[in-house]
């Protein structure tokens, strides 16, 4: 299974299989959560959990596919999240404007990389306990 964020659709498209014969479906949050506005980076975690940066809504959405439950993280703390990764402890690392934050499902927010002049991370990836960010300085 893999997932794709589509900015024009404002949705995540999930595709099963790794050949052209797989099945696909469009995933959108329910009205209570509100639609996505320019979804950006996303990650697929254990048990099919989907994490997506809902960039222009300034939040991260988590979809637990087993229960089709959506959870909103980071509202009020994020500016313009673009990249996400799931950390080994289950928190979500977020590249947001000029910093990297870790969001917990319990609502916790920790700054992993502080805001700095000229630092513009746009993507993050978790790799065996190390966190990498993609961005540029200057």
């Amino acid at each position: 299974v893999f997932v794709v964020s589509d900015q024009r659709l404002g949705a995540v498209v999930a595709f099963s299989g790794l050949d052209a014969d797989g099945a696909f479906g469009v995933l959108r949050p329910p009205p209570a959560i509100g639609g996505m506005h320019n979804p950006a980076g996303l990650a697929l975690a254990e048990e099919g959990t989907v994490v997506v940066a809902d960039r222009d809504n300034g939040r991260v959405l988590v979809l637990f596919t087993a229960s089709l439950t959506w959870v909103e993280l980071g509202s009020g703390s994020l500016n313009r999240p673009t990249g996400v990764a799931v950390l080994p402890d289950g928190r979500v690392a977020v590249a947001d404007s000029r910093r990297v934050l870790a969001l917990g499902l319990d609502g916790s927010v920790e700054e992993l990389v502080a805001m700095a002049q000229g630092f513009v991370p746009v993507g993050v990836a978790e790799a065996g306990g190390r966190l990498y960010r993609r961005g540029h300085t200057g």
Partner: protein
Amino acid sequence: VLVTDLANARVLGVDATGSATVLLESKHGIVMPVAAAIHA
């Protein structure tokens, strides 16, 4: 790896030999794929 092809509104799977397969395209409803993820 998965590659999102914005210009052609499609998602490709590329194997270690460089061979590419179109996995998703406009007929599947995608319009502007900007990122993709797969669980390793």
